[in-house]
């Protein structure tokens, strides 16, 4: 059986793509945080000046999302098939809500990514239609306009909650899958994953919330 069919092989692939996306998420968060020091427009300008690299980067990210999602769905379907009958009483000692909802938080994030790209990248939705012509343009104004709508803020915050859940399980899982765990490192990685997940939630969540609350305007 080759690497891409094997249980561990696919898991490793998911772990690596997942972890690279976590890195992206962290870098993206650092970039976005420039909004709090008023530098987001120049940050966006700087990114767009990279030219073709932006597309290389976007395609690489797309590939990671697709690989991660494809194997995630495949493995989940296999796992469901392996457990045809559930227990009448289901008491779990260790399984976390984050762990057992990976497929749902994952699918939620997939939908969110599509929406997010349509929203701020392609600018197809009505609230940002005015910014569609100018890329990157006044990103700060675009965000403020967009996140003045409660519903949009809710969608973004909800997605970040899903991401937080996903990372709660996902980050520690990466270390285990790569085989880097020992008896003492496991709880440490587990804590680290949770801390990163919460930072990501607070970091990303703070932007729309701050705008809605009128802190950024």
């Amino acid at each position, binding site marked *: 059986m080759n*690497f891409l069919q094997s*249980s561990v092989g696919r898991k490793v692939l998911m772990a690596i793509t997942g972890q690279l996306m976590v890195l992206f998420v962290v870098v993206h968060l650092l970039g976005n945080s420039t909004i709090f020091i008023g530098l987001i427009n120049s940050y966006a300008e700087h990114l767009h000046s990279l030219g073709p690299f932006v597309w290389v980067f976007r395609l690489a990210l797309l590939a990671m999302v697709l690989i991660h999602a494809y194997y995630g769905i495949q493995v989940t379907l296999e*796992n469901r098939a*392996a*457990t045809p009958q559930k227990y009448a009483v289901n008491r*779990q*000692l*260790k399984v976390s809500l984050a762990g057992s909802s990976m497929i749902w938080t994952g699918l939620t994030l997939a939908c969110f990514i599509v929406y997010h790209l349509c929203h701020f990248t392609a600018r197809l939705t009505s609230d940002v239609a005015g910014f569609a012509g100018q890329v990157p343009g006044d990103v700060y104004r675009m965000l403020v306009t967009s996140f003045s709508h409660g519903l949009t803020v809710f969608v973004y915050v909800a997605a970040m909650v899903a991401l937080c859940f996903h990372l709660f*399980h996902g980050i*520690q899982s990466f270390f285990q899958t790569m085989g880097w765990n020992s008896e003492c490192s496991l709880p440490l990685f587990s804590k680290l994953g949770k801390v990163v997940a919460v930072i990501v939630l607070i970091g990303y969540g703070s932007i729309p919330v701050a705008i809605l609350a009128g802190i950024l305007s």
Partner: protein
Amino acid sequence: MSSHNEHKTMTLTLIVWRQKNATAQGKFDTYTAKGITEHHSFLEMLDVVNEDLIKGGKEPIMFDHDCREGICGMCSQVVNGVPHGGQERTTVCQLHMRKFKDGDTIYIEPWRARAFPIVRDLIVDRSALDTIIQAGGYTSCHTGGVPDGNAILVSKPDADYAMDAAECIGCGACAAACPNSAAMLFTSAKVAQLAALPQGKPEAAVRVKKMLDAHKECGFGNCSNHYECQAACPKGINVKFIAKLNREYLKAHLG
């Protein structure tokens, strides 16, 4: 005998999975266990129920059991949703009724996983675990013709690590507890034991690949790092061995 009280007995309601054979439709039936003391083991409590059933002309509840001292790995019951009942590092044969209260209702189910088809009542077919070992859970040494035991030095930490893994009793609780029905803890325990010892190193790469292939072909699911297996394992086998298996697998492919 501080805790010994001969006169206090319990009455319990049991809701037990009954299934005539592999193909029959199964269902839950309700039974009452009377006159149970805190010193009864869980299986002795079932013995009492079965004696009543036999005397009443009914078929006793069939369940796998043999050594009744927690080492053979034969007993296999999910008690109130947890394989072996959820007492730490305890097989269901070593679980004692002092963990229950008078009037409790107890659900008893067989291991449930596609790779463990039900044979009858609480008995399942675990030959898939044998298949995984047959795929490579050994060193290919011949009987006779091996070097002196002390010719192969094994550091104490390595020997202890291998022993920690080797404590697995092959009961299948890991797969029964796993939300994905993966027997990865079982598989990894053997892979890790042999990979940690110099005797097992020459075949380590082939072994891990073959055993993982067998694991998949048997119909077990994939590990997604929930660690429910370790919590349910009556020997407390650590999930660090799954990490070791992953490492060995990567080594086999990359190194």
